[in-house]
């Protein structure tokens, strides 16, 4: 029987399950313990598992992410929580220079089985330094697996798969999704290699991930009322990208709009579009289009923040423009 869980509850269940299943697993990060997690994901875990395994860290991203890499090398299975993606920039060195490269530069001697979770994305009026989507930057780096759970089911299932991975895995949790509810099967097993069709359609592929998935689905519903059948693809795994699912959809719909909360220039959307151009150019009936964040730091004022981000209305407009039916 599937259960109704919030994305947050699903993450917490997954953490609890992982901690129970493997004594090598531990969680560390800022305020994961006594505070209960910045987004309350780890609430209650300190009481159950104690301060060794639910380890509060100083405000020291470079230090504790690097220590997580070392602990992984030393045989543990650390889950490191970074409060937001913006703070992860303080830990780029251990993530990119060390975790992602160590196996290669040691000639295959040392793998780094670390899982790094972090909140990402905008939409809560927390302004420029707490609202970014840098998933695309991390997806640039060979040696990393980059996951973007957008549903409660993926929130529940991706952690176990990430922990089973012998290499570093980054999990991006969009802050707007924590309260989202969804059906979660009893024994959730999900893969960390494929994209998923979330809504089937025939006229246009809406390709997205993370916090933009609900917006894409909302856009598809609005388009349906206009007689346009949109297919929604949830990329789920941002590195390595699942080209096959994307191309199958694009070849069927012959038009595609990529929706990405990252800034337009050098975005993950740009990479997806390039791949479609390389692999399915002659199947297209219209130029590719994308809806990304505007090229501005995320503003505080609500109306300005909304204007900066992808929205269902912008997606609908982009599709209408593709179909030559813009108002």
């Amino acid at each position, binding site marked *: 029987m599937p259960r109704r869980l919030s994305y947050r509850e699903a993450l917490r269940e997954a953490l609890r399950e992982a901690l129970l299943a493997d004594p090598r697993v*531990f969680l560390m990060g800022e305020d994961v313990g006594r505070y209960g997690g910045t987004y309350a994901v780890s609430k209650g875990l300190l009481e159950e598992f104690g301060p060794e395994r639910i380890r509060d860290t100083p405000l020291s991203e470079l230090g504790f992410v690097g220590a997580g890499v070392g602990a992984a090398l030393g045989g543990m299975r650390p889950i490191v929580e970074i409060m937001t993606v913006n703070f992860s920039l303080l830990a780029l060195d251990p993530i990119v220079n060390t975790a992602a490269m160590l196996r290669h530069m*040691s000639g295959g001697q040392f793998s780094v089985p670390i899982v790094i979770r972090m909140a990402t994305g905008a939409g809560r009026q927390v302004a420029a330094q707490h609202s970014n989507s840098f998933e695309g930057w991390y997806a640039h780096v060979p040696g990393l697996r980059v996951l973007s759970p957008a549903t409660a089911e993926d929130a529940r299932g991706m952690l176990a798969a990430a922990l089973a991975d012998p290499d570093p895995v980054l999990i991006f949790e969009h802050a707007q999704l924590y309260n989202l509810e969804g059906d979660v099967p009893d024994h959730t097993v999900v893969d960390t290699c494929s994209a998923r069709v979330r809504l089937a359609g025939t006229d246009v592929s809406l390709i997205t991930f993370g916090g933009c998935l609900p917006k894409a689905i909302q856009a598809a519903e609005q388009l349906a009322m206009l007689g346009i059948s949109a297919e929604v693809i949830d990329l789920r795994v941002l590195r390595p990208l699942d080209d096959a699912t994307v191309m199958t959809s694009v070849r069927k719909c012959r038009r595609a709009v990529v929706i990405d909360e990252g800034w337009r220039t050098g975005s993950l959307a740009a990479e997806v579009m390039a791949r479609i151009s390389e692999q399915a150019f002659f199947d297209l009936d219209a130029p590719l289009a994308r809806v990304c964040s505007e090229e501005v730091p995320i503003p505080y004022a609500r109306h300005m923040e909304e204007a900066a981000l992808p929205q269902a209305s912008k997606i609908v407009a982009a599709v209408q423009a593709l179909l030559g039916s813009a108002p």
Partner: protein
Amino acid sequence: MNAFQVPAPPTGPVPWDKAFALARLSDMLRIRRMEEKAAELYGQQKIRGFLHLYIGEEAVASGALCALRAGDNVVCTYREHGHALLRGVAMNAIMAEMYGKQEGCSRGRGGSMHLFDRATHFYGGQGIVGGGLPLATGLALADKMSKRPGAVSNPFEKREGGPLTACFFGEGAMAEGAFHESMNLAALWQLPVLFCCENNLYAMGTALARSESQTDLCRKAASYGMTTERVDGMDVVAVHEVVKRAAHQVRHDARPVFMELQTFRFRAHSMFDPELYRDKQEVEAWKTRGPIHTYTARLKSQGLLSETEFLALDAAAQAEVDAAVAFAEAGTWEPVEDLLRDVTTPQGAP
């Protein structure tokens, strides 16, 4: 004070038996001869990229590494040929790695800066200044959390203490945030890390006083509530005795210790370095404190070493180098078809 005045050369009795004493001399000669050859091979373009020589600093690795146990972890910088060698990585594999051959200890993917060896818990070969410090902290955290048994397995393990992680880094790293964050974590969580700062006075071309507001490095470390030790890094005897004591403390108290090993590199920072930032006279002054000739003189004056024995040790080191070069020359290039190998872990790999 004359800028090029240096402390008197290390003197005094060597408090070791002959075998141990000569082994330390052999350590230093092996590093010296290997690196002199590497520099020569660089000139012949057999070795390319960055090559950071340890020449002048050998007493640190020689005194320190023999104080460690087989199960301890070792994390080093890109100036790590000597540490790798004394940790037990074969000179053949080190030389082949510098050549970029697949018989190298990192299969030719790492080069001079990225020597790794799983068998000896040798975790690099880290190319980012300060990057090894959080890594070492995490390795010690893993040992503490998993209660990894001591390297020497015996029924008196408690008495023997647990494994430690020795982290070597230069004084340049002490200006990095990674240093401070790692010191804080290691002290806060009481982790068994032996922080070994090899202070050679120059962070590439920047002298200590030009990069640190506080040039008393032990004082910086002590601010984290950590025991500190300062030692003459040109004196293999002093290095070994202090590291032995510090390692014992780290193992038994499961707490970090910081050591400043005061040393000097006789060669340029890397082969690209024209050495415009320091006076040749300063280098010459430091050479009077050279770790090999001062130690040799002490051993001889004590009657622990004859010239014949010295020549035999040196010849053995040279023969090892010659064999390593032959091994590297005979090594093979990894096929380009394997380019994408070891980016991620293949299924079923360890």
